Structure formats: structure tokens, C-alpha cells
């Protein structure tokens, strides 16, 4: 056993003489004990590893002398040490491999063609549009939010479960206020559970299924390459395609995954854009369902939200300090996805989602019930009437935004109800849908934002989004009304 308590390993990387001398010198000066070998600690010090330098500063009395060696060695190269050492390490790895590995030239033709057409903009963008049209619009929007929701919501809940629950509750519970907690318009079962099971679940389920398919096919990293240049303009890079796309499923999950981005700046920008302009699948599904009968309205909504996404991203990239990202990503091969893996993954994501939202739905129902009983709710709707008026919306729309506080999709589902009553015109629906899309993240997402980015950043983001969303709505309403558009 060597001094570090680890087995001696005879294989040794050999760097050039200058580096080897520096390593020798540093190793001799290192007195503290480390989990890694002293040689590795010396190598990391030489490559300016912040963490290790901080640690050595604390623990090594000889640190000034070590630092002198580092400085001296660094001055002998025109490239950063990190680069020099990585290059030499790679070279030796190649030397080893050249003695053990042979490649037979064999071009997998189909593969390289597919690679090329998914990455090049001329063919890549149409492919992306096709994927979006079939994956998102047809499958999630029409099938999930349309067919499935109609089936579960319309057939199952409205005609069977809700009337039955209402009746049972009315018969069993003598107190009116308790009756309304469980059933009727805002009850835990008739509203909270109905939204969760009948509206949100089919939409999220179909989204996760589509996403898992794309994920396993290896398409996403190719999409990352495709959008890299555009994303660089908004302070992100191709890597951000993963959290951003996942955001269309669940922004909460996506905010968690934004951790994979390289710089803090990117993580902040991604968090902001996710909270602001990426509608989650539940919200998206409801909005697609709402607007699909009016293609023009859908186009206005999509165009406006994309514009806001790009504009805010661009401005954030100018304002938020920090280093600009580079792009590096492994390009996995395109694979034929395996059904079992996809189903398992979809189910585990749905399970995660369901366990996460049910408590919020119930909590939201209880809070709304309490708000109704105490009159706070009516007071809120009353006081926000001028704001609704500025948006060109009827006062009842305030309810929808109030719901949006608890869950974005919850609010969108409320909008769905309002539209079914025929209370809104085309312009009003678009304005409401835009404002609701941009509006604050749901409680769960906000909690994750605080956990991942810290209080200050999370509050700053929410503080920006809240007035900004309404401002956008007011501006859009103003423009549409001014132009006299009917959608």
C-alpha cells in the first residue's frame, strides 16, 4: 500500500519534463493527507482547480512555495495548463488504444444521412416542425387534451362521478359549508380531483410518452445542435434544449434539470425563461384545446409567446453578467426506442408528477373553499376588476388568475370552463391565454426555484414576471383592439 492508503498502481502517465518537475516539486511540499494521490492533487493545483487550491491554501503551510512553482510552470507555456495537460493525457490514451483497437471502415449509410438531415437547418427545421406538429399538436393537443379529456372529463366525471358525489355528499353531510368543501363547484373531489385526473393526467401522460420516445431515439441532442446558434443569442446554448423541451412537460421538473447547464448565468436565464414563457404540458394542452377551434388565435398566441421568449432571453443575456457558454455535447447514435423502456419511463414520470401535484390540487381546493367562505375570494375578484378591465376581460376571469397562483395548469383549466360557458370572445381568450402563460410559476415550480437558485434570484424572477405578464396582456389587448381584429 502506498502512503495515501491506496494500492500502488504501476501504470503512470508521463507528462513532459517541465510538468513532471513541477509535479515532483509540488508533491514534496504537500504535507496534508488527501483522498486522491498527491500526484493528482499536484496536477489539479497546476491546472488552477479552484476547489483544490482553496483546500490547499487552508491545509498546506508551504502553500506560497507551491504557488510559486505553479506560477513558474504556467509562465513557460503560452496555452493554459489545463489545455496542455489534457492534450498530453489524451495523447497517451491514444497511444494505449492504438495498440489494442482496430476499426474496420464501414459506413452506416442510413445513420449518417439521418444525422445530417436532422442537424442541418434547411432540413432540420422542417423535421422539427413535423415533430412538433405530430408529437405536440396532434398527439398531446388533439388526442390528449381533446379526445381523452372529453372522454374522462365529459363522459366520466360530468355525467357520472360528479352528480353522484354531489348527491352522496348532500345526503350524508348536513352542513352546507362542509358539503362545498368536498363537492359542488369548488369541492376537493369535484374540482381538485377532477382537474387532476380528468384534465391534467391525460395531457401530461401523452406528453411524457411523446417526450420519452424522442428522448430514447436520440433526437434531442441533434435538436440541441440545430438550435445552438439561436440559443446563444439568448445567453444559452444547445445544451439548454433539454430543460427547455422538458419544460413543455413540467416546468418544475425542468427547473430541476437546468442544473445540467454549465454556468450560473445560463442556469439563471433558463430558470427565468422556464418560469415566464414555457407553458407546461397541462397548460399547453388546455390552451391548445381552447384555441384549436380558432387557428388564427392559436397563431397569435404562439407568435406572441415566442416573441416574448426571444426578447426576454436576449435582454437577459445582455443584462446578466457572467461568462458566455461554450457548447459541447456527446452525440449519441439514433436508436430505435424500446417500448418497454419508454413505457416504464413514462409511467415513472407520471407517477412523479401525480404524487407532486395531488397535494397541491387538494390544497388549492381547500384554499379556494376557505376564500369563498370568508369572502376573501369575492373581495379579490372585486378589487381586481379594473386590472381585468385593462386586459379587456370580464371580472370572472380574475378567478382564473387566482387559480393560476396555485397551479398554472389549474388556472388554464379554469379558463377552459369559462370558455365553455361562452363568456369570452376570441380576442379575450387569446389575451387571457397569453397572460396566463407568462404569469407566475406555480407553487411547486417556485419552491424548486428557491431551492435551486436561492431566495434572491427566485424572488427577483417572480417580481419581474408578475407585472410583466399583465403588461404583455394589456399591450396585446391594446394592439388587437386597435387593429379591430376578430379571432
Amino acid at each position: 500500500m502506498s502512503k495515501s492508503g491506496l494500492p500502488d498502481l504501476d501504470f503512470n502517465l508521463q507528462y513532459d519534463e517541465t510538468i513532471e518537475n513541477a509535479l515532483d516539486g509540488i508533491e514534496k511540499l504537500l504535507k496534508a493527507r488527501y483522498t486522491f494521490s498527491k500526484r493528482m492533487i499536484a496536477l489539479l493545483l497546476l491546472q488552477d482547480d479552484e476547489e483544490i487550491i482553496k483546500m490547499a491554501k487552508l491545509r498546506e503551510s508551504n502553500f506560497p512555495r507551491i504557488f510559486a512553482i505553479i506560477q513558474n510552470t504556467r509562465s513557460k507555456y503560452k496555452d493554459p495548463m489545463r489545455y496542455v495537460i489534457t492534450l498530453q493525457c489524451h495523447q497517451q490514451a491514444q497511444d494505449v488504444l492504438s495498440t489494442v483497437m482496430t476499426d474496420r471502415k464501414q459506413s452506416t449509410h442510413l445513420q449518417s444521412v439521418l444525422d445530417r438531415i436532422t442537424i442541418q437547418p434547411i432540413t432540420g427545421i422542417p423535421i422539427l416542425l413535423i415533430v412538433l406538429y405530430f408529437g405536440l399538436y396532434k398527439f398531446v393537443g388533439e388526442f390528449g387534451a381533446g379526445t381523452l379529456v372529453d372522454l374522462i372529463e365529459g363522459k366520466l366525471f360530468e355525467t357520472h362521478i360528479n352528480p353522484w358525489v354531489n348527491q352522496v355528499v348532500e345526503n350524508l353531510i348536513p352542513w352546507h359549508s362542509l358539503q362545498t368543501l368536498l363537492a359542488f363547484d369548488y369541492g376537493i373531489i369535484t374540482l381538485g380531483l377532477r382537474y387532476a385526473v380528468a384534465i391534467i393526467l391525460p395531457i401530461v401522460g401523452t406528453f411524457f410518452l411523446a417526450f420519452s420516445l424522442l428522448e430514447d431515439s436520440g433526437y434531442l441532442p441533434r435538436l440541441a445542435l440545430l438550435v445552438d446558434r439561436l440559443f446563444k443569442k439568448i445567453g444559452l446554448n444547445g445544451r439548454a434544449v433539454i430543460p427547455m423541451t422538458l419544460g413543455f412537460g413540467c416546468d418544475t421538473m425542468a427547473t430541476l434539470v437546468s442544473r445540467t447547464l454549465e454556468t450560473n448565468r445560463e442556469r439563471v436565464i433558463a430558470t427565468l425563461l422556464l418560469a415566464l414563457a414555457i407553458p407546461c404540458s397541462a397548460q399547453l394542452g388546455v390552451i391548445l384545446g381552447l384555441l384549436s377551434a380558432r387557428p388564427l388565435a392559436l397563431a397569435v398566441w404562439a407568435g406572441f409567446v415566442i416573441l416574448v421568449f426571444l426578447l426576454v432571453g436576449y435582454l437577459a443575456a445582455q443584462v446578466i453578467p457572467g461568462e458566455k457558454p461554450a457548447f459541447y455535447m456527446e452525440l449519441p447514435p439514433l436508436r430505435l426506442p424500446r417500448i418497454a423502456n419508454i413505457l416504464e419511463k413514462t409511467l415513472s414520470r407520471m407517477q412523479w408528477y401525480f404524487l407532486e401535484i395531488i397535494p397541491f390540487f387538494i390544497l388549492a381546493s381547500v384554499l379556494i373553499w376557505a376564500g369563498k367562505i370568508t369572502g376573501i375570494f369575492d373581495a379579490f375578484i372585486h378589487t381586481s376588476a379594473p386590472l381585468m378591465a385593462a386586459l379587456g376581460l370580464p371580472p370572472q376571469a380574475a378567478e382564473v388568475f387566482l387559480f393560476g397562483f396555485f397551479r398554472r395548469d389549474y388556472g388554464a383549466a379554469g379558463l377552459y370552463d369559462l370558455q365553455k360557458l361562452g363568456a369570452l370572445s376570441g380576442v379575450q381568450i387569446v389575451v387571457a391565454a397569453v397572460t396566463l402563460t407568462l404569469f407566475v410559476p406555480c407553487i411547486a415550480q417556485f419552491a424548486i426555484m428557491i431551492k435551486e437558485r436561492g431566495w434572491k434570484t427566485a424572488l427577483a424572477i417572480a417580481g419581474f414576471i408578475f407585472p410583466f405578464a399583465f403588461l404583455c396582456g394589456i399591450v396585446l389587448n391594446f394592439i388587437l383592439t386597435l387593429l379591430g381584429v376578430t379571432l
Partner: protein
Amino acid sequence: MGRKQKETKKPVKFLNKRSSVKNEPSQPFKQRKMKLVLVGTPNVGKSVLFNLLTGSYVTVSNYPGTTVEVTRGTAKYNQQTYEVIDTPGMYSLLPITEEERVTRTLLLQEKPDVVIHVVDAKNIERMLPLTLQLLEAGLPVILDVNMMDEAEAIGRKIDLDKLSSILEIPVVGTAAALNRGIEQLKRAVMEYVKKRVA
């Protein structure tokens, strides 16, 4: 089997607690839980391997960076219990991203008994440098050359025995998605642990 717990990244802080491990020889070898850490670049199959080794399920996908958190599970081979740890992907021991930092901190803190470096046979030229770094750090490495089936399909041949004798560490070829080579990998782990304790 199948027990799993998630932990989020911890603030960077590592102390040397190697002595605590050294002070345990009085305990019979079979009773101490061995730590087995899976490391490697994103999208090489660490999570599939984790599932196969522990018999539990973590989400597996075909895009890099799925594992943002450290996942732990347990496995038992030959009456020896192992704590199996799946880590976020890392490209180099010199971290750039937060996920890489999580993994390095884990390697520094946890004093693994075995580190399985999982590489993609098709891209081994980009990944072997990390194997060399892990060796240089003095870590007890087993090299798992995964996705051998895909490498063979593109006409690549790798002499694993020769690689093993050059690097002087166990080298195992697997195709985890097809459940191939997993038994050999388990055997390599058991032999490695036995040899190191002896």
C-alpha cells in the same frame, strides 16, 4: 436489494476520513458494506448498469445528463453487501459543470472501495483519458467497456485483455442494455475486492 435513496448535491467540503476505514480490519471482511461507485461521461449507460447491479429502477434515457442527482442502492453478491452509487456524468476529474463537481466531491469524500468507470466502446478514445486520470488519482478502478454490441456493429474490435494488462486493472466488456457481460462485471468486482483486502 432495490433500496434506493436520492440525495441532492451537498456544499463542497471534504475532509479526509480514510483512517476510519483503515481502523476496521477487526471487523470480518464480509460484514463491512463495500462502496461501489459508477462514474463516466453522460449517456454511457451508468443508470442501466445501476439498475442491473441493484435490481432497482432509475429513469434511463438516451440523452446526456439525465442523472443530476446521486442515487444509492444496495446489492449483495457472494454474501458481501455493496452500496452502489450512481453519479452524474463527468468528462474529467477537473470539473466544469456543477454535476461534474458533485461527482468529484463524492469521489473525494466517500473513499470508494471500487470505482467502475463506464465507457462507451464506440467513443472510448474520448473517454479513456478519464480512466487514466482516475488511476492517477490512485482510485481503485475497474474499466467497464459498455455498448460493445454497438461498437462491434460499426466494425470496431478492442482487445480487452491486452488493455487490462497495459493498464493493470480489470477490464470488462458489457452490453448493459442487452444484459450482456453483467455477470463478468460482478465477478470482476468480487475478485477485485478480495484481492485488495488480502
